[in-house]
Structures are given as C-alpha cells and as structure tokens.
C-alpha cells in the first residue's frame, strides 16, 4: 500500500493510515526524498495517528526521512504519536532524537511556521 503525499503550499504531508510493512515505509522514504526536491518543499509532516505499533524499523525510517529532508532543505515534524505508543516506545528505548514531534497535524504546522519565521527573521 503506497502512502499518499499531499502538498500544502511549501509543505508535504504524509499520513500513515494503517500498520505498514517495511516495504511501504521504504517506499514512503524514497517518495518523500524525491518530492521534497521536485516541489522545493521547506517542511515535511509525517502523521502517524493511525499507527498502533511503532517498531524500531519505523523509527529508523522516520529518522532517515528527517535527515534526508534536512539535506534537501526541509524540516521534518512527526505528529500524532498516541500516548500509549509513546509510552511503549520509551519503554523499549526507542527515541526520536533530533526530530521535532507534535501532538497533531495542527501542532505540526505551527512548529513549521515557527521555524520558517525564525529563518525569515535571520535567526
């Protein structure tokens, strides 16, 4: 199942709607890497609200997405981690170091807004 990537202004939004296989995730990573460049996006939001299970491969892919996007000039925010998923993650020692996280899509957009604001102000 391929994950649709929505374009909203200079942002890309990918919403994970079900539990994904490793291939799905890898495809998402490749798609995002291409589209960030093609569409000259400045921000990427990955919404994982619908994900019941977040395993180490998912985390690594999300970290890869963030790093690749950064290299191509876009900031990444992961949004929609549910409380129980977050709890399970820290218990397993899985962390999302160096990536912004937000409660939901709205927060994610706000975080990206704050970022681009900072860039515009020369900060």
């Amino acid at each position, binding site marked *: 199942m391929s994950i649709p990537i929505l374009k909203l202004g200079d942002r890309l939004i990918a919403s994970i709607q079900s539990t994904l296989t490793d291939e799905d995730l890898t495809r998402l990573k490749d798609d995002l890497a291409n589209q960030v460049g093609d569409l000259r996006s400045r921000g990427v939001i990955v919404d994982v609200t619908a994900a019941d299970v977040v395993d180490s491969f998912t985390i690594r892919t999300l970290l890869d997405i963030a790093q690749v996007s950064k290299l191509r000039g876009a900031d990444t925010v992961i949004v929609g981690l549910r409380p129980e998923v977050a709890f399970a993650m*820290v218990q397993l020692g899985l962390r999302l170091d160096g990536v912004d996280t937000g409660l939901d899509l709205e927060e994610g957009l706000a975080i990206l807004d704050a970022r681009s604001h900072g860039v515009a102000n020369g900060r």
Partner: protein
Amino acid sequence: MAISAAQTDGHHAPDLTSSEQDALKDLWRVYDGSYEEIGEESERALAADPEFGPLIQSMPREQMQAQSQRSRDLLSRAIVGGDWEPYLSDLREQGAGYAQMGISFTSWYRAVGVIRHLLMDRLTAAYPEPERLVAVVAAMDKWFDNSMGIIGDTYLNTKEQTILRQQEAIRELSTPVLTLMDGLLLLPVVGVIDSHRARQMTDQLLQAIHKHRAKVVVIDITGVAAMDTMVANHLVQAVDAARLLGASTIVSGLSADVAQTVVRIGVDLSRLNTVGDLQGGVSDAMRLVGFQVQRVGQHNDPDGPEARIS
C-alpha cells in the same frame, strides 16, 4: 474481589464421620431444646463486653430475635438435614460484617467461648455417660473450629480488600496532573517512585498532555525523598515520552541532597531541563508557553513593553 471469590469458594462443611454426625445431632437436640435460654444467657454475659455490649444494646429486640431464629433454622438444616451451604454462606456474611463493623477477631472468639461454655454445661447434664459426652464434645469442637475458620477467612479477606482499595486510592491520589494555564501542566510527585507508580505517573501524564494539548510540563520532584538510578531512569522515560507528544518538560525541585546524589551515583540527567525550585520551573515554563507574569501597577518595565509579548 477475585481473591475473595476464589478463597470463599474453597470452604467446606466440617468433615464428619457418620458417628460424628450422630454425635452432632445429639448435641443439636440439647442445643435446640434450650436455644432461647442459651441465647438469653449469652446475651447477658456479653452485655458487659466492650465490643459486643454496645452492639447488642443498639440492636432492636425484634431484629435480634429474627436473626437468632434464622441461625437456628440454618443450623437445623445443616446438622439434621445435612445441607450445610446456607449455613456456611451465612457465616461468610457474618465474617464480612464483623470486619466492616470493626469488631476484633478476639472478641468474636470470646462470644463463641461464652456459648460453648453454656452449651457444655447442658451437654454434661444431658449425657452423663463419659463416652457419649466425649463424642458429642469432639463433634462440637469440629463444628466450632470449622465455623471459626470460615469467619476468620472472610474477616481477613474483607480487611485485605479494604487495604487493596486504599492502596488504589493512594496511587490515584498521589499522581495528579494539574493544569496551571493553557498548555501548561504541573505534575507534583510526592513520596516513593517505584516501577508501578512510575508507569502510572507517565501514563497519566501522557493522557493529560493529549487531552489538554499541553506544550510544556513541569514535573516537580520536591517531595521525592530519595533519588537513585531507577527513579532517574523513570524520570528520563517520562520526559522522553512527553517529548514524543510534542511537549517539553522542565523538572523542578531538585534539592541540594538530590542533586548531590545524582552527581555521586553518576546518573546523566543532562538531557533533562532541570531547575532548582518549583517557582523557577513554573516561570521558565510560562516563558516557554509565551506568558509573562507582572505585578499589577508596575508600569515601568525595565525591559520595555516589547518584552511582554513573547
């Protein structure tokens, strides 16, 4: 609740041989013959009892008689008819009742002792031949021991359930998550943090962040008596989990002792945002959320008006 169900179901009627059953029937003939008399005499004997006295006096006459009649019927059914279950379930209710009323187990033994004594007098008179008397008394002991065991078990179960409920209540009460202002939560931690409590604390914190859409959380550990690697680890986990939901965390209330301990045992808390006291934690947190508190009427703000809008 599950504990009590499993344990009370294990109760059985006294294990009696057929000759013991006959002996118990002989006993019942004597007991039944002077049931009211024994009831009244034991009542008089217990009237001065510090625990049973007030109970007997407070109970209306009719209720007492009804209860006594009920026990008589149940006993008759059990000893004569061999149908013990109704009698046993009545004992279980009694045990739970005494636990709830706070009557001690010792005084319940005293009450049974009085009845045993009264019964003994009558049995001695009714069965002068020693062999018969010994058999009857042995059956009585078995019956009483069994009954006392059942009452004791339910008594303990009831108390244990009370303790469990209280533990649950303490746990619930001990990890409140408070809203200080829009997007700012306070989690005061008091007492000892064990794994179970840390789990519950983190869980409640995450639910609260989700519900209130909090951006900043202050975890105040002023009330945490001792810090060790485990507690520190739990704290780091709570902070990491909160960050995954997009909330930043400030840990406040690290006393001098706690700070020294952390350094001595070599726990790395550098990933945490720590502040000495709650006041500092809250004012840092408010700055992060974008509020600034100012004394009313203080017009000459040294930082100028712009500083207020952050």
